[in-house]
């Protein structure tokens, strides 16, 4: 299928991109890798009047190391997340989750910023960013703004980004001592989107959990934190029984955006099982 017509511009600076977005108004849309957007254009699910291609903005492709954080440029591809030595060392959850996105060809074009801005409730990277307590860095006519990931995802395919704002990077804390991570994903078949994804970061000291961050994909209209499970894990012994008990606290009231024909009882069971598996896998990471 062929998209409806649109204009196209390829700015060379972030400032020019913001100016183009502002001039384009409600009809302007950012394109980076296009792995979600081109599909939507072809099916005419979206009909922008202007595409602002940010693929040539070198500043948005950089990974910058700060003392306690990593700032990952928005147009860093999933392939790069998988292979970048700094991401693998300091934000391994993002490397792990990138491995679950699409297939190799899609990962060569799909970007972290694109996935986060697209805000598909079943998207895997948004759940990982939420689990990491990542911050979303945006540039707009009023300058830079930093949005906590907990406030960024506001609904299915909806974010706190204003129409004239550009997501330029994702800032995540470097993983500290004692933390381990895992991403557990379940699909009904290889070509299906995520039915449920669980991003896990746990910290243990000795035989005890001291911290836990758990975020679920496709478990609501946005990625959500499994707060009850996190609270139950902190202070618990590192045993499979304790993990099972904590995971069983998932109450099963989640309302996935894409239900894919399965029952609420099935989803609730799946969420508990995958969460247990994800935490156990993180422990043996």
């Amino acid at each position, binding site marked *: 299928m062929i*998209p409806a017509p649109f204009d196209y511009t390829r700015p060379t600076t972030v400032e020019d991109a913001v100016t183009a977005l502002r001039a384009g108004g409600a009809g302007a849309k950012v394109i980076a890798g296009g792995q979600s957007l*081109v*599909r939507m254009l072809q099916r005419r699910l979206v009909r922008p009047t202007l*595409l602002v291609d940010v*693929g040539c903005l070198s500043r948005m492709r950089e990974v910058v190391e700060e003392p306690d954080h990593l700032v990952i440029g928005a147009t860093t591809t999933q392939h790069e997340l998988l292979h970048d030595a700094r991401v693998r060392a300091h934000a391994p959850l993002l490397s792990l989750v990138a491995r679950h996105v699409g297939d190799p060809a*899609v990962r*060569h074009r799909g970007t972290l910023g694109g996935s986060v801005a697209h805000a598909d409730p079943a998207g895997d990277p948004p759940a990982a960013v939420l689990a990491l307590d990542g911050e979303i860095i945006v540039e707009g006519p009023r300058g830079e703004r930093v949005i906590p990931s907990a406030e960024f995802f506001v609904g299915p395919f909806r974010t706190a980004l204003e129409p004239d704002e550009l997501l330029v990077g994702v800032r995540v804390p470097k993983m500290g001592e004692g933390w381990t991570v895992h991403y557990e994903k379940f699909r009904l078949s290889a070509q299906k989107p995520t039915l449920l994804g669980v991003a896990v970061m746990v910290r243990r000291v000795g035989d005890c959990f001291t911290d836990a961050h758990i975020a679920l994909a496709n478990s609501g209209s946005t990625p959500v934190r499994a707060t009850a499970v996190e609270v139950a894990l902190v202070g618990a012994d590192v045993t499979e029984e304790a993990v099972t008990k904590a995971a069983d606290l998932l109450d099963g009231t989640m309302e996935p955006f894409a239900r894919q024909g399965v029952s609420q009882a099935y989803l609730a069971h799946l969420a508990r099982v995958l969460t247990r598996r994800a935490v156990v896998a993180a422990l043996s990471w």
Partner: protein
Amino acid sequence: MIPLVLRVNGREHRIEVEARVTLLDALRDVLHLTGTKKGCDRGECGACTVHVDGERINSCLALAVMQEGREVTTVEGVGTVGAPHPVQAAFVARDALQCGYCTPGQVMSAIACVREGHTGSDDEIREWMSGNLCRCAAYEQIVAAVRDAAEAHRA
């Protein structure tokens, strides 16, 4: 219409396309390089796989205007009937096709897969070739061809 210099298989082409034209449609309909196939046209089947700056991508999910300044390689650029690419030769030797429609995409993906080094086992080959579907299900032979090509590449 947007004037565009598209570099394909080492040659520069000056073309004019609408912004909405995908790389796949520009290759097939404007440059008449019909080796690259349109299967699902939504990034799921891999029949349209080409290399851009040496990386495999789905040309159906890429706009032609986004490829300016990049190097595109299609199946027409990797080998000829008389001098096939080693991966193509392996596909022939292993009879790794039936109808052949997915083959250009399989070959482009396999060349990249071998180069990326994701050929340590048959399972690894299956996973890293998973973006290329074959409705005839010649998968066993495709895996064998990629395995052979990888062994030849390492030798």
